[in-house]
């Protein structure tokens, strides 16, 4: 083909469809040096059957034309706002110094996963055999990289003034609770391409993503964090495009072959559960971490999953899909999840890169109102006990390492579905070794592919094996302090961990705002 013939054949103004066809022309060539199976070796082993890749409707094709222009405009606006935020000391406008801990959680727990998603979609772009999914995955890969970058740039302003954010990338690969989001994405990335896209584009982006972006961005708006609101808006229009990809891909796979249905249902069961476990962090952010609360975790779960998710799965029934397994357990646990999560960070305040606190009387009243059936009955007495100990100067810290779930890597902090007062234990035997889980959902995932999860890098076990100390550390030395050595390996500095009360962040915040010290550790003087 020559330029001359193309120019002659094409009309002056192309339709969107024609433009897309031009963009992707010749990408789906017939391979001659190697058979297609060797060029795309990953498209068969998962058991998914594709009869006609041409049936994939690339959801990007309609917006492709505006994409570049629109993205460039968004970038320009975002960086103009970040500049203004920096020049006006925007970090001083947040509701309270405690709020910044939410930003720390976002930067260490979510932004690195935007980068993981960027990597995963680049791999999908290579591994899918059809042009539609290749293009869609590559475009999303670019989006995810942009999200990681804009978040890092925006949050860098907070990093100049607050602790806990300076080594977010280093911490992501080491800190115990960050192994939860890390292992989630690595599980998706090391699956086949079809499971990967069902995991992230459908189960996460389509079904659950509202439960990350809505709470963080609304909380940011309520708490005066205009920087986070800005990158949130910048990412939002991409997210809706990604959600379209999620629903398109699931319909495509279901329509291609009836044999695909049970495989996809199992992936949805798995990735719904893994995503739900990941959202544990969001539940405590909503109910405990934001000083000015937006809505409770239970309200959000009811609206975004039970109602919206329920409607989605009713729509998908005609393809033979049903609601994800164990979804009923998530509804039962909605009254408990955030309390179980925040208690964990209160226990292990020494080992997280943010500054937790015991809920104030006002915080607890809000919880009583939002959780009338459970908060006063099960959790208020515990938090009041903590407050009393703090007043006596005997703040409770858990100094013993916890038992972790082999699948989600969260400590076994969740209660039995039928008993909020009892830890849930599940166990499997595989090749002569015992494996432990926090829930039926996590046990099922392991039991289906034990050979994958025996490889889990569980932070607690790695510490006991001696793999979480800096080179040159001598664990046999007389004055060896394992906790101190692990925190050094995490690159934690003074103020990164431990309570908000008395932290350098609190001290600075009060100084900058000209406020007097208050809070549970207030001295009588």
């Amino acid at each position, binding site marked *: 083909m020559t330029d001359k013939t193309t120019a002659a054949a094409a009309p002056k103004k192309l339709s969107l469809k024609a433009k897309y066809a031009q963009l992707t022309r010749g990408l789906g060539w017939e391979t001659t040096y190697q058979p297609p199976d060797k060029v795309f070796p990953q498209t068969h082993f998962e058991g998914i059957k594709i009869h006609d890749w041409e049936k994939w409707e690339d959801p990007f094709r309609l917006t492709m034309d505006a994409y570049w222009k629109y993205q460039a405009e968004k970038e320009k606006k975002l960086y103009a706002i970040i500049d203004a935020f920096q020049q006006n000391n925007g970090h001083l406008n947040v509701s309270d110094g405690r709020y910044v801990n939410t930003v720390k959680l976002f930067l260490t727990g979510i932004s690195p996963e935007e980068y993981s998603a960027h990597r995963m979609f680049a791999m999908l772009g290579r591994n899918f055999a059809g042009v539609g999914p290749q293009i869609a995955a590559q475009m999303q890969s670019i989006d995810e990289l942009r999200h990681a970058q804009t978040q890092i740039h925006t949050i860098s302003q907070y990093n100049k003034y607050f602790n806990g954010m300076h080594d977010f990338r280093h911490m992501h690969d080491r800190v115990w609770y960050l192994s939860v989001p890390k292992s989630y994405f690595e599980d998706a990335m090391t699956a086949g391409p079809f499971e990967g896209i069902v995991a992230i584009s459908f189960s996460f982006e389509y079904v659950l993503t509202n439960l990350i972006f809505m709470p963080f961005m609304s909380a940011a708006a309520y708490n005066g964090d205009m920087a986070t609101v800005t990158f949130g808006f910048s990412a939002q229009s991409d997210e809706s495009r990604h959600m379209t990809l999620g629903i398109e891909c699931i319909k495509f796979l279901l329509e291609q072959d009836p044999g695909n249905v049970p495989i996809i249902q199992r992936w949805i069961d798995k990735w719904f559960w893994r995503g739900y476990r990941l959202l544990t962090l969001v539940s405590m952010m909503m109910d405990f971490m934001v000083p000015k609360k937006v809505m409770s975790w239970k309200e959000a779960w009811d609206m975004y999953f039970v109602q919206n998710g329920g409607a989605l799965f009713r729509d998908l029934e005609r393809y033979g899909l049903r609601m994800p397994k164990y979804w009923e357990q998530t509804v039962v646990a909605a009254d408990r999840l955030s309390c179980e999560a925040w208690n964990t960070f209160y226990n292990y305040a020494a080992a997280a890169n943010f500054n937790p606190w015991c809920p104030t009387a006002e915080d607890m009243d809000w919880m009583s109102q939002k959780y009338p059936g459970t908060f006063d009955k099960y959790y208020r007495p515990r938090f009041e*006990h903590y407050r009393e100990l703090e007043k006596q100067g005997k703040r409770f810290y*858990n100094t*013993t390492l916890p038992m972790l779930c082999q699948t989600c890597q969260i400590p076994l902090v969740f209660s039995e579905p039928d008993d909020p007062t009892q830890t849930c234990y599940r*166990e499997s035997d595989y090749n002569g070794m015992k494996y432990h889980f926090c829930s039926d959902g996590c046990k099922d995932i392991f039991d289906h592919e034990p050979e994958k999860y025996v*490889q889990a890098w569980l932070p607690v076990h790695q510490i006991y094996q001696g793999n979480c100390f800096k080179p040159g550390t001598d664990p046999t030395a007389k004055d060896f302090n394992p906790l101190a050595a692990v925190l050094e390996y995490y690159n934690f500095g003074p103020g990164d961990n431990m309570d908000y009360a008395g932290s350098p962040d609190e001290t600075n915040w009060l100084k900058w705002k000209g406020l007097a010290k208050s809070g549970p550790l207030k001295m009588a003087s």
Partner: protein
Amino acid sequence: MAVNALQPGYTGEVKDRVELFHGNHLIYIGWDQHMMICAPVALPLPPTMPFGALISDVLPTTAFAAHPDWPRIDWSQVEWLRSGKPFKPDPGKSLADNGLGHKSALRLRTPGLDGIGATGS
């Protein structure tokens, strides 16, 4: 099929093999109805340690000792579960001889002690 992998016969490296724990076995211990201690604890212990020493020497050094119910425990009344099933440990015998091998889960129940404000906390 133990894993859905590109390579037929693929196996993964078992990350928590007993030989990587410097002669110890990893033992998990949880205290039922005491969820203030947010999760069961994980402890690397010599398999030759007598079960009695676990009670007298090890548990008092863990987070359990920070619970207000801790000093009230009557150890002659404690009920034990191994892998979720009731069992009667012999305090004079080793952990291994009590059937507590690498990555075993042990639970204790303290009837009458139901956590802070009897809330299971």
